């Protein structure tokens, strides 16, 4: 399985017109015939695109997991679908980080008796509001 889009320097969302142009410009007659059969016929292209998407996913996974040189990843597929390693960090480490972060937040919350703190903040806020309102009323009465 080869990546015909890449070999014709197209994007996988290329329109029929673009594909037509690229096929006409293609110098390699074998590749031109393959592209005509696979990409110019809608039914064929749909099936091809599905597999193309899956292989892209697998290529991406392999790049992130460091499996781009595995024993089962050889030939055309490996040539066309191996992506350069992106700098995505390990999902598992990220999960662990996130969980520990959540845990520390929770612990802090518990330690500072979060609900009571919330009630106290509400009470002070309400008190300040009442005092300000009272002062305003007095001012108006004096004026």
């Amino acid at each position, binding site marked *: 399985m080869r990546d015909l889009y890449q070999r014709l320097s197209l994007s996988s969302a290329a329109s029929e017109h673009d594909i037509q142009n690229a096929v006409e410009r293609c110098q390699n007659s074998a590749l031109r015939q393959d592209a005509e059969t*696979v990409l110019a016929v809608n039914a064929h292209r749909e099936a*091809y695109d599905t597999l193309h998407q899956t292989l892209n996913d697998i290529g991406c996974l392999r790049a992130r997991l460091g499996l781009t040189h595995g024993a089962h990843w050889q030939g055309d597929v490996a040539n066309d679908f191996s992506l350069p390693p992106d700098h995505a960090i390990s999902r598992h480490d990220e999960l662990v980080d996130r969980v520990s972060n959540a845990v520390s937040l929770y612990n802090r919350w518990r330690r500072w008796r979060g609900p009571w703190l919330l009630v106290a903040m509400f009470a002070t806020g309400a008190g300040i509001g009442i005092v300000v309102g009272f002062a305003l009323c007095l001012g108006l009465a004096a004026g």
Partner: protein
Amino acid sequence: MSMARFSPFELVLLKSRSQVDTATLLLLAWVLVHRQHVSEGQRRRRLAQVTARFRHGHELGPVMGIAHSQDLQAIQLAAEILRKECSKERSLSVLHQSITVATDDGELSLANHYILRFLADLLNVTPTTLSTLFYELTGRPMGTPEDPSRHAYWQQHNPDYFSQKAHEAAAEQQAREAAERQAREQAEQREQKKKRRQQEKQRQQEQAHARKEQTRQERERQRQRDEQQRREQAQQEQARHERAQGGQRQSSYTPPPPDRTTRALAVLGLPPGASRGDVRLAYRRMAQLHHPDRFFSESEHQVALASARFQRIKNAYDYLMQTY
């Protein structure tokens, strides 16, 4: 530190009693999603069947939903967990389960070819082990996946399209041939018309020639008639004279030469009553003038005309030699 929310799969994972089991579950669901010609209910039942011994302790529905959405990050997370926490035996059993789920007496789909190989790479299973395992489970060699990016693959899998295309091409070819044939016929007709016109022209030329000849002969005849008249008049005068003189003598009346001889003489450009020597001389001159070899350097048509003229001259000469 990322502030993103926990994804559905992470939540499932956190709730799970066994993370490895949940991760395996997601990967099996991923394989199942890429199996063709299976209904959604069948997929769920199959997944429940295979994972009956798992200890994850949560619903299968969300996992199946995540697999359907092709969430790459979730799959990556599952793969990482599997790689981190799988023993050698466990990895073989995971592969075993995924092969069963992927085939089940059906064909291994192209996507699953690559997914199974990915799992084998992930779990450090060598190609020989994988192919042996596959052969033991399905009774068929795993083989290399077919290549839908090739012309040959579609020729094999969609022959209808190609036969239709061939039909169309044949029809087009026929149409083109018919058009060509028609064009050829038209060209032939034009050619024939041209030839006919040429022949017509030639005939007209010949007719004109003949007419000229005829007028000349006519004039010749006229002259002969005039001469004859004159001669007759002279004879009559002579006769009158003789009668006047009293001498009753028979007139020596010579019949006019036959028409054909006159015409033959005219062809040689001689007046009637020319001598044999004149005929021979005239013939030599005319033969030299009209011999076809003189027109050798000119067109074939000219040569043909000259030979026709020469023939006529020769016929006239022969006739005169015989009769004179």
